[in-house]
Structures are given as C-alpha cells and as structure tokens.
C-alpha cells in the first residue's frame, strides 16, 4: 500500500484490505534500488505513514510491511485466505492498543565528533557508533525507566535503526501500549523527566499504528 495512487478497500476472506495500484517497476522490480535513494525512501515512507495513520483513526489496522506488493488481486486474496488465522490472532494482540516510541537523550556531554583520515574510515567509525548498546550497558536509571514502561505495555521492542545514530541518544524503544494505560505513560514520563531535570531529555512519539507488533516473532 503506497504511492500517489488512490487507496481503495477490497474485501478478502472477511477482512478489509486497503490497497493502491502502484507501478510494478517502481515498487517491485526497482524497490531495492529505490530503498537506497533516500529522497525516494523518505517520500514513500511519509505517504505510507499518512495512509496507515488515517485508516487507523477509523478502524483497527495491521500495517503491511513497507514494500508489500501483490501482482494481482487474486494473489492478495489467496494470501489473506491462507494467513487468515494468523491475521485474526494479530488483530487480537494489537486490539485497543497503539505503538509509542520513547527515546532518552543525554544532555550532559556531547559525544566527540567522528574524525577520520579517509571516507571509508569515517563510515566504519560512524557505523560502530550506530551499534545498539545492550540494555545492560545502559545507565541504571534509564534501565529502571525502561522496566517501568515495560510493565504498563503489552509488548516492547528495540527502537528504530534509522535514528540509532542520533547524537546523544542514550536509549530508545517502541512499546505496544493499551489505550487505557496512556495516563500511566504520562505519569512515568513526567516523573522521570522531573527526576532527570536538565541532565536528560525524553522524547515520546505516538500514537502510531502497530508497525512493530504485527508479527508475534517481532516481539
């Protein structure tokens, strides 16, 4: 589902599938190359997010992974029929819940700028900075923040890779939060923000459609 093409509903095996008729060349044959074109990737992702969010405002939705293309309506129907049971289970798992992204930034000391003698060395060092740190290496206060969030969430997963290299990012994760827990989320955020004062900054984004929680094995 994506592209500037119109988005239309199709009933398959009792479920509503929202699809758009996209260019086969752009979204199938050349998708791998397009994914490396940041300009294309950014525009297509924003369109994808707008469509999924708009649908999610009106109904429970399981977002398909970016780049999911069916070559015909028949192949879509066949796939939905085959996975019907899994899809129904997934709907139960994400029912009345949203995805939220939480990031903690340190404001104490800026990470030293990456310097290198060659472009290749620069990329190697920068890539090393992007490696996700195991939770055990994260400061104990951030660990306790993480475990409080985990307690109110239905599921949690490591945060996105794309922003992993953001300056001063100390920790990030995505949570599947039941809607009746939003006040608890607010309380935890406020309490830790007050506790950390100027030393750390918390960023919370949401509600997102449950992008990271569609498959059981993702959690």
């Amino acid at each position, binding site marked *: 589902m994506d592209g500037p093409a119109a988005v239309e509903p199709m009933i398959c095996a009792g479920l509503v599938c929202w699809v758009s008729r996209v260019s086969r060349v752009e979204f199938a044959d050349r998708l791998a190359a397009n994914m490396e074109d940041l*300009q294309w990737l950014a525009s297509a*992702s924003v369109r994808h997010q707008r469509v999924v969010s708009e649908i999610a405002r009106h109904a429970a939705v399981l977002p398909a*992974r970016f780049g999911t293309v069916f070559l015909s309506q028949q192949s879509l129907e066949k796939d939905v029929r085959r996975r019907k049971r899994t899809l129904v289970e997934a709907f139960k798992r994400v029912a009345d819940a949203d995805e939220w*992204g939480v990031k903690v930034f340190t404001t104490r000391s800026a990470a030293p700028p990456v310097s290198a003698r060659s472009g290749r060395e620069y990329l190697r060092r920068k890539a090393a900075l*992007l490696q996700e740190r195991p939770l055990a290496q994260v400061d104990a206060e951030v660990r306790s923040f993480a475990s409080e969030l985990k307690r109110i969430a239905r599921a949690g*997963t490591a945060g996105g890779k*794309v922003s992993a290299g953001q300056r001063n990012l100390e920790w990030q994760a995505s949570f599947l939060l039941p809607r009746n827990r939003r006040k608890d989320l607010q309380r935890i955020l406020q309490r830790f923000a007050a506790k950390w004062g100027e030393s750390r900054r918390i*960023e919370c984004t949401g*509600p997102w459609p449950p992008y990271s929680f569609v498959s059981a094995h993702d959690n």
Partner: protein
Amino acid sequence: MTTETHKVAVIGSEPQDDVSLLDILDHVLNSGVVIHGSLVISLAGVDLVYLGLNAVLTSVETAMRHLDTRR
C-alpha cells in the same frame, strides 16, 4: 499536543502534530521491508541511512510541503 513540562516532549497525539521524518522512518521501516516478495529485516543500507539522511531531510521536507499545498 506538545507538552514541554520539564524535559518531556510528547509528539503526535493530535493529527496536526508534526512528527519528524526520522521518527516516521523508524516506525515504518522497523519491522523490515519486503523486496521481491522476501522479507528483508536488515537492509544493507538501513543502518547507514542515518548517515546520509541529514543531507536530504531539508529537500524532502520542502517536497512534502509542496505536496501539501497542492492538495
């Protein structure tokens, strides 16, 4: 709703909120991408996307604004 109490920012709770492109990419691409019918969890380029992202952020955001005003 953007709450700036202490040092918390909660963004995106209202439809008119401006969520950053970086956050969108984080959530939309986090569970992988389907290429040629196969699920690609870690794209060769994705880890490095951030490296080049700043360079295109401005131009993309300008492009998206054009898209909005055309509606």
